[in-house]
C-alpha cells in the first residue's frame, strides 16, 4: 500500500522479529506521514504490541530498519529516540504528585522552575485536568489517570506519540468519551500518533489509517472506510465488523453463483468453476426499497431475531442459498410496522456490488 505523497515521517522497512523459533513479526513495511493517526489493529498475539515496542526501542527487531524524520533509529536505545508513550497500565509514578508526574521529563531538561510550572499548567489544561496538581495518582479515577499519562508523554513535545492499548483498562462509557478527546487533542497538536488496539470500533472511530495485523504480518493498510468496505483478506472482513460469508463458485469474471442465485460483483475474479467465498456486510442486505424488477432479490424466512435496542440483528434463511443463513440489520420500527416475527416470510435485496469475493 502506498501512503499519501510527501516524505513519510516514520518509515519501517522489512521489520522482523523472532523469539527463538517463533516468528512474531515478518517483513513489516509501513510509512506514516507527519501528523497522521495510525492504529495497529489485530487479535491478541498478532504482534501489534511487539511492533510498537520495536518502534519505541524497548524490543530489538531481528531484521529491518526504522527511520523517523530522516534519521535512522534502527539501533538507537529508547533514550535516544524521540517519542512519548502511554502504556495500558499508565505506569504513573504512584509516590509522585500529578504535577511531578507530568514534570518528570521536564526536570531533566534543566528548564527553569517557572518554565516547568507554566508548561505543566498548560499540559494539564490541555488534557482537561487543571484542578488538582497536588493529588496523587491513586486519588484519581482511571480516566483521569489516563489523561495524566497522556500529559506526561506529551510534556517534552515528542515527534511521535505511542499509545499501547491506552483505553482498554477503562469502563465502556469513559472509553467512548476519551476516544474522541484523544483524537481531537492529537489533531490539535498535529503529533504523529500510533495506537495499538484490539478493539475494531476504537480503531474505526479514531484512526486516519488502520494497519490490520494477523499472525505477525500486515493484512491491510487503509482508511477506516477502506478497511471496512474493501477488506483485503477474509481475515480483515471477518475481524473488522460483522460479515456474512457465502460459499459459491465463480461463474465468469465478475459473476459468482451461490446456490440458485447468480450475483454480479466487481471484485470477483479467477477462472470459471473455481470455488469462492463471498463476504457481505449485514447492512448490504436491505429490506427496502425493493421494486419490481430489481436484481438480486431473494425470498427469505425469519429464523431468529436478536433484540439490540433500536435495531435488531435478524437471521434469515433464504430458499436457494443451500441452507446458508444471512444476518441483516432491521430497525425495530420496520419489524413492528410490517408485523414481522420468527417464521415470517420477507423479501430482501442483496447489494451485490458491495460483495467481496475471495478464493475458498
Amino acid at each position, binding site marked *: 500500500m502506498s501512503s499519501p505523497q510527501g516524505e513519510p515521517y516514520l518509515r519501517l522497512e522489512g521489520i522482523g522479529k523472532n523469539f527463538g523459533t517463533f516468528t512474531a513479526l515478518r517483513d513489516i513495511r509501513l510509512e506514516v506521514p507527519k501528523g497522521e493517526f495510525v492504529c495497529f489493529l489485530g487479535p491478541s498475539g498478532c504482534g501489534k504490541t511487539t511492533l510498537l515496542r520495536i518502534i519505541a526501542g524497548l524490543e530489538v527487531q531481528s531484521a529491518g530498519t526504522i527511520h523517523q524524520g530522516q534519521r535512522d533509529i534502527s539501533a538507537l536505545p529508547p533514550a535516544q529516540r524521540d517519542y512519548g508513550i502511554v502504556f495500558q*497500565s499508565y505506569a504513573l509514578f504512584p509516590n509522585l504528585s500529578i504535577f511531578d508526574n507530568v514534570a518528570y521529563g521536564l526536570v531533566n531538561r534543566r528548564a527553569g522552575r517557572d518554565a516547568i510550572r507554566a508548561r505543566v499548567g498548560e499540559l494539564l489544561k490541555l488534557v482537561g485536568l487543571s484542578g488538582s496538581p497536588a493529588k496523587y495518582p491513586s486519588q484519581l479515577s482511571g480516566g483521569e489517570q489516563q489523561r495524566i499519562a497522556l500529559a506526561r508523554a506529551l510534556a517534552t513535545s515528542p515527534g511521535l506519540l505511542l499509545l499501547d492499548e491506552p483505553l482498554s483498562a477503562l469502563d465502556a462509557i469513559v472509553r467512548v468519551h476519551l476516544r474522541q478527546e484523544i483524537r481531537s487533542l492529537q489533531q490539535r497538536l498535529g503529533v504523529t500518533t500510533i495506537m495499538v488496539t484490539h478493539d475494531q470500533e476504537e480503531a474505526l472511530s479514531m484512526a486516519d489509517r488502520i494497519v490490520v495485523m494477523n499472525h505477525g504480518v500486515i493484512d491491510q493498510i487503509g482508511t477506516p472506510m477502506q478497511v471496512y468496505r474493501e477488506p483485503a483478506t477474509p481475515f480483515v472482513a471477518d475481524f473488522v465488523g460483522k460479515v456474512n460469508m457465502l460459499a459459491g463458485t465463480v461463474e465468469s469474471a465478475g459473476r459468482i453463483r451461490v446456490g440458485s442465485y447468480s450475483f454480479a460483483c466487481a471484485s470477483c475474479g479467477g477462472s470459471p468453476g473455481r470455488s469462492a467465498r463471498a463476504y457481505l456486510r449485514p447492512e448490504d442486505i436491505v429490506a427496502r426499497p425493493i421494486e419490481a424488477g430489481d436484481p438480486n432479490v431473494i425470498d427469505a424466512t425469519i429464523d431468529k431475531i436478536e433484540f439490540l435496542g433500536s435495531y435488531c440483528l435478524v437471521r434469515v434463511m433464504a430458499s436457494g442459498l443451500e441452507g446458508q443463513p444471512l444476518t441483516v440489520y432491521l430497525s425495530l420500527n420496520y419489524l413492528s410496522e410490517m408485523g414481522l416475527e420468527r417464521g415470517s416470510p420477507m423479501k430482501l435485496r442483496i447489494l451485490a456490488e458491495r460483495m467481496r469475493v475471495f478464493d475458498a
Partner: protein
Amino acid sequence: MSAVLAAAQIRQRVHWSDRVGHLAMAALALALAALLAGPLLTILAQSVEGRKGEFVGLKNFVAYFGTPALLDSLWNSVWTSLVATAVVVPAAFAYAYALTRSCMPWKGAFRTVTLTPLLAPSLLAAISFIFWFGNQGVLKGWMQALGIAQIYGAPGIILAQIFSVFPHALMILITALSLADARLYEAADSLGTSRKRKFFTITLPGAKYGLASAAMVTFTLVITDFGIPKVIGGNFNVLATDVFKLVIGQQDFPRGAVVALFLLAPALLTFGVDRIVQRKQTSMLTTRAVPYAPKPSRGYDIAMTAYCVVVTLLMLAVLGMAIFASFVKFWPYDVSFSLRHYVYGIVDGGVDVAFVNSLTLAAWTALAGTALVFAGAYLMEKTRGADWLRPALQLLALLPMAVPGLVLGLGYIFFFNAPHNPLNFLYHTMAILVLCTVVHFYTTGHLTAVTALKALDAEFESVSASLKVPFWKTFWRVTLPICTPALVDISRYFFINAMTTISAVVFLYSPETKLASIAILNFDEAGEIGAAAAMAVLIAAASLAACIVYLGIGWLIDRRTQAWRAPK
C-alpha cells in the same frame, strides 16, 4: 540472500546511562565472586590437597572413610537431625494448623512467643537445658527416672535443636497453610465430605510442598548447627564440631574441608528441592482464590488451644530458665536475685566489648547488606542489557542460602588467610565479619527485594527512558521511596541475624573483634554458664529492642507515605 540477511543480527547501541548499570552489575558480580565463589572453590581445592598443598586426589576422602571416629560423627549428625526433624515437623504443623485453621483465642500471643527463639542465638536453648537437666539441673532426677543418664550428648542436642528450629519450620508451615482456597472446602461441604476426608484430600495435599520444605530446612539447620552441640554435646561428636576441632584445634585444613563438603551436600540438596517447591506452591493458588476463613467449633477449638498452650509453656520454660538463671546469684545453691553475671561476668570480665562489637557488626551488616542487596536486586530486575551477566548474578545471589555458615566461615579462612591473596589485609578485621555476614544472609534479603520490585509497574523504566531520564534518577525518586517497607524488613533481618550468628564468624573473629555470641561459647568453655546465659539474654534483648525500633521506623514511614498509598 535471505540467509545473509538473517545472519546480520541487529544490536541496539547501548546508551551511556545503561552502561553505568552494566558496570555496577559487573562490580556486584565481582564482589560476590570474591566473597562467595572464591571461598567455596578454595574449600573444594583444599579437600583434594595434602597438608603441604600438593594435589592428592581423593586421598583425603578415602582417609576420612577409614577413620571410625569421623564416621561415627557422620552417623551421629544424621540420626540426631532425623529425630529432631521427625519431632519438629509434625509439632509445628499442628501448631500452624491451629493458628491458621481454628478459631482459638490469643493467636497473636501464641505466634509471638513461638517466634522469639529467632531473636537469640540457637545455643540459648542448650544453655537453658543445662539448667533444667544438667549436672546441677532442676529436673535431673525426673530425666534419670525416664532412663536418660545425662543431658549432655544426643538428648540435649535433640531437645535444644527442636526448640531453636521450631520457629523456622512454623513460619514455612503457616505460609503453606494460609494459601488455602476456601472454594475447595465449600465444594467438599456441598458434597457432604467428612472432616477427616477433607483433611486428607484437601488440606494435606495443599500443604505437601510446605511440609517437604519445612522438613528439608529443619534437617539442614540441625545438621549444620554448631553452637548447640558445642555447648551441650559433651563427648558426642557431630560433623559441625568435627570441622571446628579439625581446623581450629588440629589445623588439619584438608580434612576440615572434606567434612565441610559433607555439610554442604544436604544444604545444597535442600536448596534445590526448596526452589522447586516454591515454584510449585506459588502456582497452586490462582489470583481468583477465595481465602479460607475458619468457622468456630467448640470442642476442636478448645483442643487446639490446649495444644498451643502446652507448646507455648514449654517454649516459655526454656526461654524463662535462661533469663532466670542469668539473674541468679550462685546456681543451684543460692537462687536469690543478683546482677553478678552481668556485672562481674560480663562487664568486669571485659567482655562487654564483645557485646559492643556485636552491635557494631549488626549495624554495619544492616546498613551495607541492605544497600548491596537492594541495589543488586534492582540492577538485576530493572535495567536493560548485559544479559550474559544476569544468570551468573542470579546464581550468586541465590547460592548463599545453600551454604551453611560453618562452611562459609571455613572458606573465608582458607581464602582470605592465603598469603598471596591481595584481600589478605581483611583477615581478622571487623570488615571481614561484616562482609561474611552480609553474604551469609544475602539470599533472603535478595528475595524480599525482588518480590518488592516485581510488584512495581514493569514500565516505569520504559517511561523514564522515553522521557530521557537516566535509570538512577527513577531509582532514587520512585523505586526507592516505594520500596522503603521492604528495605526496613531486609535491614531488620540482617541486624537480628548478625546479632545471633555464630557458625560463620566463629572462624573469623580476632581478639579485638570478638562477638557476643562467641563470648557465650567462651563462657561455657570456662564453666561460667551463668555468664553465658546472661550474654545470651543480652543478645535477645538487643534483638528485641532492634525489632521495636524497626517497628517504629516502619510506622513512621507508613505515616509519611500514606498520602499516596491510601486514596481519599
